[in-house]
């Protein structure tokens, strides 16, 4: 068997071709090969900035109270000086018709509003309060909640966490609750998570803890490694709807 010589030195044109081939190969690998998948990516959930703005839930009347009407900001008595309310207490409203009164047993306008001076609120004992003293009015009936609010264990506080800083602002009752219908309305929830290791990717509307990941995570969350028979009770298979009554 003859010994094979090193052949490349025999071809004077070889380096050019080799270089070209190599360059083309490198370029192809660099620019046209598939980028490795770094992980599932999803389009970011669109959140209205207004949804998460740190402001009170409601805009309230100040003291003295004034409402916009016909392009003017009118105080209560500027109309009610001329228009007295009829003496019948329970009736269909002809003015302020946007008000829906859903306040439990409290079904009379003049339980809270002063009949004589509409720019004021009135307590049961006849004390008149400005519109900036709403919590004192509400405390007549909601004593325990008022106690909690004064301590800071009920209600929302903005500003600083430090009471000594003087920058704390505890929102008044009517900055969160509608005084005419104090129960909170239902909210449209912001989108569910679509995060890595937090259930299935890419659906955006995952119906429950139904994937393998979800089970694993649920087990971790619950702190026990074994399969709980209760685990699936709250989860709904994809495509089914929660029973509603």
């Amino acid at each position, binding site marked *: 068997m003859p010994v094979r010589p090193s052949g490349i030195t025999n071809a004077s044109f070889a380096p050019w071709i080799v270089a070209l081939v190599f360059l083309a190969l490198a370029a192809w690998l660099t620019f046209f090969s598939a980028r490795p998948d770094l992980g599932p990516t999803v389009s970011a959930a669109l959140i209205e900035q207004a949804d998460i*703005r740190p402001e009170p839930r409601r805009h309230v009347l100040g003291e003295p109270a004034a409402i916009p009407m016909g392009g003017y900001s009118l105080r209560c008595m500027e109309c009610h000086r001329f228009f007295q309310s009829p003496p019948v207490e329970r009736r269909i409203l002809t003015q302020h018709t946007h008000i829906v009164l859903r306040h439990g047993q409290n079904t009379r306008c003049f339980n809270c509003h002063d009949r004589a001076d509409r720019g004021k609120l009135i307590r049961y004992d006849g004390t008149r309060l400005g519109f900036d003293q709403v919590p004192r009015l509400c405390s007549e009936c909601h004593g325990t909640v008022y106690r909690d609010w004064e301590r800071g264990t009920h209600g*929302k506080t903005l500003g600083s966490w430090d009471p000594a800083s003087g920058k704390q602002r505890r*929102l008044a009752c009517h900055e969160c609750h509608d005084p005419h219908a104090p129960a909170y309305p239902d909210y449209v929830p912001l989108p569910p998570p679509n995060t890595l290791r937090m259930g299935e990717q890419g659906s955006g509307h995952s119906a429950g803890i139904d994937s393998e990941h979800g089970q694993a995570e649920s087990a971790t969350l619950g702190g026990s490694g074994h399969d709980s028979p209760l685990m699936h009770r709250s989860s709904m298979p994809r495509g089914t709807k929660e029973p509603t009554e």
Partner: protein
Amino acid sequence: MTTPTSATTDVRIWDGPSADAPQPRRSFLRSAVAGAAGLAAFAAALSPLKDLDVMELADPQAFLQKHYKEMTPAEIEVALERIRNKVEARYGVRPDIRDLRPQAGVEFAYALNLSRCIGCRKCVYACVAENNQSRSPQIQYIRVVEMPRGTLDLERGNHHYDRPRVPDNDHYYMPVQCHQCANPPCVKVCPVEATWKEPDGVVVIDYDWCIGCRYCEAACPYWARRFNFAEPTLPKEELNPTMSYLSNRPRPRGVMEKCHFCLQRTREGRMPACLEACPTGSRKFGNLLDPTSEVSQILKTKRVFVLKEEVGTLPRFFYYFDERYPSAHDENVDDPRLPTSPAPEARP
């Protein structure tokens, strides 16, 4: 059959060139194929480099940077300047990044009113907007778990609930985030001490020191730690430029992150972003050492519990309840003074 001469020629073709008759074309092809294959392998081996972002390259300065606790103020300022330049190059905004230190005499605590939370998830997205989490893949620090009424068994909870309206009458809502434990298992398991507990109680992470082993994620019983599996993406216009070294500066791929009680806000006296966004006032934050603070009042006067008390983590995150008086909110109860109501029976 071929002639003997041609047979000899055939044999010589298969044997390759002989010493006396070199065949440049054949040998060239052979070496070219071998060389091309070798280079192809080489180029393929190097091809991951094409995914290397310039921003990801560890500059020597960052590589030689010390652990946060070992840096002198001057060295921290150098690190902050490096981060400023990096963020400006990437997001086009020069951030206001500082190294905020804990205040003396302050231990933070968080309280959450389960009677009031309605599960609207505003806290989740306020947190994302404040803390520069990756939008895609999504990273969120807060999980709102929808729980069936009458149980505290988290295995029955669901954080993927997607109702048209909340709250649902048969469920209550329990947001879970980092509990900033006083006895944090995540800190114990970190092999490089990249995460630790600060004097004000907040468990922090030095993102430049984290090696991404995810031991802490496994150790956390509250599922509070998040890992950057991919390079975080964040629209330039959504970047929050108010940053702190240990909290919401942009994180690289391959490190852990988690809730830090909005250090960049709370160490300056402000409220956390999740609290400000809550429409119900369910979230309370304050100084545990101040008896007049809201959290102290809650611990003193409310029914409070911590999640998974039995694992001994001593969380700084408390859940509490309100007393409720359903009759006062009952729509059916009408004023007995109303003329439409039946007259009350006269007492004997």
